[in-house]
């Protein structure tokens, strides 16, 4: 074990002096996380900045009801409302993308409602904002339904008592018919968020993606020593052959831990990522690094040359990263792609972090840690057997 530690610390110094490990392990993921956050941060949450226009050409008490409803919603901070004097001005604003959609109440709207005849509300939306248009239409619809409900309530009450809707009948009503629109309540069921914010998502995604390249620097050292003939010299030294393999594995583990550790701290300080409960993150990082060492060990065991191993390792790291959803989440809901993603340790790492989001306790990460450890143990055991056959016996 002493020999393994000596080999690992010697190589660690070498790797740190050769700046490529620092570029791959720290600078690359940090830079890309920053750029991705900058570019995708806004689109990631798909936050809609709703800006609606309102044109009230009617100006009656009834038509003003819609303005009141919209102002109420505006007060909740869900949308921004702008009023226009003419339909043309509003349409122009929609076309130019100043507002997403505009709601128009034409002249005579109130009169039509009072006389129980058909009326219309026009919603003009931008072709590129279908969801915003749908929301504007929904608000208009809800307002219209409220009016209809009151009308229907009066008509139903009249029919049920076999009377006509006359001013006298109106006067005989004991409650306000507009209450008919409130036969239900929509109650909020509050829920926690088990999803990473954009900054943390890209920080964690890039960290775990480049982890597999960083760990390569350690494991592939074995093949470099073999080619340069220094492996034979090491084997001649009075140390066990297993400790040579162990030393390289230890180096890979250390490189991975250093890279991840620096990234966790740096992304929190520099770009405001929130990784969650430290103990949970630490367990995920250790499990993640172990799985990377196991998988890259497998690559080293089957490759013939250091270059071949480097290339194969890169291909595997890129495929696992893509599938694991480190660049963008694969699939939606529980379709095939979103299940496929869990054949990678990357996806479990992200899942574990998502479970830590919103201040969850460290234990929330344990299922994911367990899953990643299965990757680590299985690939680690196979690598050990193969590497033993090649470098020890």
């Amino acid at each position, binding site marked *: 074990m002493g020999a393994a530690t000596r080999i690992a610390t010697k190589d660690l110094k070498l790797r740190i002096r050769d700046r490529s490990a620092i570029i791959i392990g720290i600078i690359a993921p940090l830079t890309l996380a920053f750029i991705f956050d900058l570019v995708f941060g806004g689109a990631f949450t798909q936050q809609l900045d709703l800006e609606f226009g309102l044109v009230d050409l009617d100006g009656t008490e009834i038509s003003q009801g819609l303005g009141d409803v919209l102002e109420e919603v505006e007060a909740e901070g869900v949308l921004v409302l702008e009023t226009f004097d003419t339909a043309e001005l509003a349409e122009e604003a929609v076309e130019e993308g100043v507002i997403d959609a505009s709601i128009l109440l034409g002249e005579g709207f109130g009169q039509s409602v009072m006389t129980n005849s058909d009326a219309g509300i026009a919603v003009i939306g931008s072709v590129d904002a279908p969801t915003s248009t749908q929301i504007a239409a929904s*608000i208009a*619809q809800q307002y219209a339904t409220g009016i209809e409900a009151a009308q229907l309530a009066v008509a139903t009450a009249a029919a049920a008592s076999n009377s006509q809707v006359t001013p006298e009948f109106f006067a005989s009503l004991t409650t306000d018919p507009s209450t008919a629109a409130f036969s239900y309540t929509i109650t909020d069921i509050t829920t926690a968020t088990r999803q990473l914010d954009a900054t943390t998502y890209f920080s964690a995604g890039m960290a775990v993606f480049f982890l597999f390249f960083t760990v390569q620097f350690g494991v592939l050292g074995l093949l470099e020593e073999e080619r340069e003939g220094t492996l034979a010299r090491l084997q001649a030294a009075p140390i066990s052959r297993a400790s040579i393999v162990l030393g390289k594995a230890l180096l890979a583990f250390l490189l991975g831990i250093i890279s991840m550790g620096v990234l966790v701290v740096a992304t929190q300080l520099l770009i405001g990522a929130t990784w969650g409960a430290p103990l949970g993150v630490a367990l995920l990082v250790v499990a993640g690094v172990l799985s990377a060492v196991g998988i890259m060990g497998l690559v080293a065991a089957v490759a013939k040359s250091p270059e071949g191993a480097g290339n194969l390792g890169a291909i595997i790291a890129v495929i696992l990263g893509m599938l694991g959803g480190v660049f963008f989440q694969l699939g939606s809901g529980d379709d095939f792609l979103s299940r496929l993603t869990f054949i990678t340790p990357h996806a479990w790492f992200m899942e574990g972090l998502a479970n830590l989001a919103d201040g969850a306790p460290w234990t929330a990460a344990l299922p994911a840690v367990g899953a990643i450890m299965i990757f680590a143990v299985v690939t680690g055991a196979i690598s050990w057997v193969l590497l033993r056959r090649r470098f020890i016996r």
Partner: protein
Amino acid sequence: MRVWAIGVSNIKRMLRERSNIFFVFIFPIAIILLIGAQFGGDFDPVVGLHSADDGIIAASIVAEMESLDDIETRNFGSEEELLGAVEGGAVQAGISLPEGMDGAAAAGELVEIGYVARTDGTGPQLQAVVGSAVAVVMKPVGAAQFATAETDAPFDRTLEIARGIDEGAAAIAVEVSAVGESQFPEDLGRFDLGAPSQLVLFTFLTALAGSAALILTRQLGISQRMLSTPTSLGTIVVGESFGRFGTAMVQGLYIIVLTLIIFGVDWGDPVGAILLLVLFAAVGAGAGVLMGSVFSNDQQAGGVGVVLSIGLGALGGCMLPLELFSPTMQRVAHITPHAWALDGYAELVRRDGTTLDILPELGVLFAYAVILFALAAWRLRIAITRP
């Protein structure tokens, strides 16, 4: 002739490396496929539904939600599953319909409907959509409750009357129309958006990755040996640049031809599409030669190359359409040659533009290429002749 020989040997070197087969030929196509599969559909928000009630009100609400055009729905077996889906982001909002809604309505009580939404994304705004759908369904119920309270007629009867009147009653129609020219036309194929982005991303990546080959050429002393033959320094510099340009072109043409044949991507005006590729490959080649001259460690250059090409690609709109960037970010994006190339392809692919329409983009890319090659030639001369 010597320029040709140096260039072609560089392309051969690239093609003989087996891992390049993956990164140059298989990987970009896989990504185009993956992104096409992922985003081929539309971006409609998804509302989850859970109904614990088998009554008429619950069924009507579910039917009303399912009939909405720009909203997708998904059914969940339990409220827990629904909450889990909202928490995990699989759906943006959810409606939970409790048991006994019909009974509560008949008793004149408030019918309670559970709503859950994410606090981010479209969650808060979807409440308006859900509220409107529920309002439509609950309209006769509210009217019947009102009439029962006013006239003491039984609820069943007033509800029947209300439904009957509602059928033929005067209605306030909400008419929705769309104006403006769509940035993403309806007939845009599912791969048409992704293919140009990946073309730009990967030709640049390949060109920059070529810097490692150039560094090896210098490290192994091949450049110096070439100099000892009757080959001028200028020929070597041009040849090496031609090699980088050639590898980028091989990949670019491959992506264009394959996506055209397999995915039916409409690249628009072929002259314009090829010209854009030629100039963009030249920009990539210039950047690759510059990096290959400035760095002296191929592993370092490889790492920096990956960061640069992915970073510039993301910034330049290869991973998210530029139209979805904020105005400020759109301006920032146009620092990259990627954004100009993508603007050009957008004009050709989406707006059926011609070569004339993309002259400004071609001009900017040409300027990038000239500047990068000038810098690269200067640095490479120094790097090769430095003792």
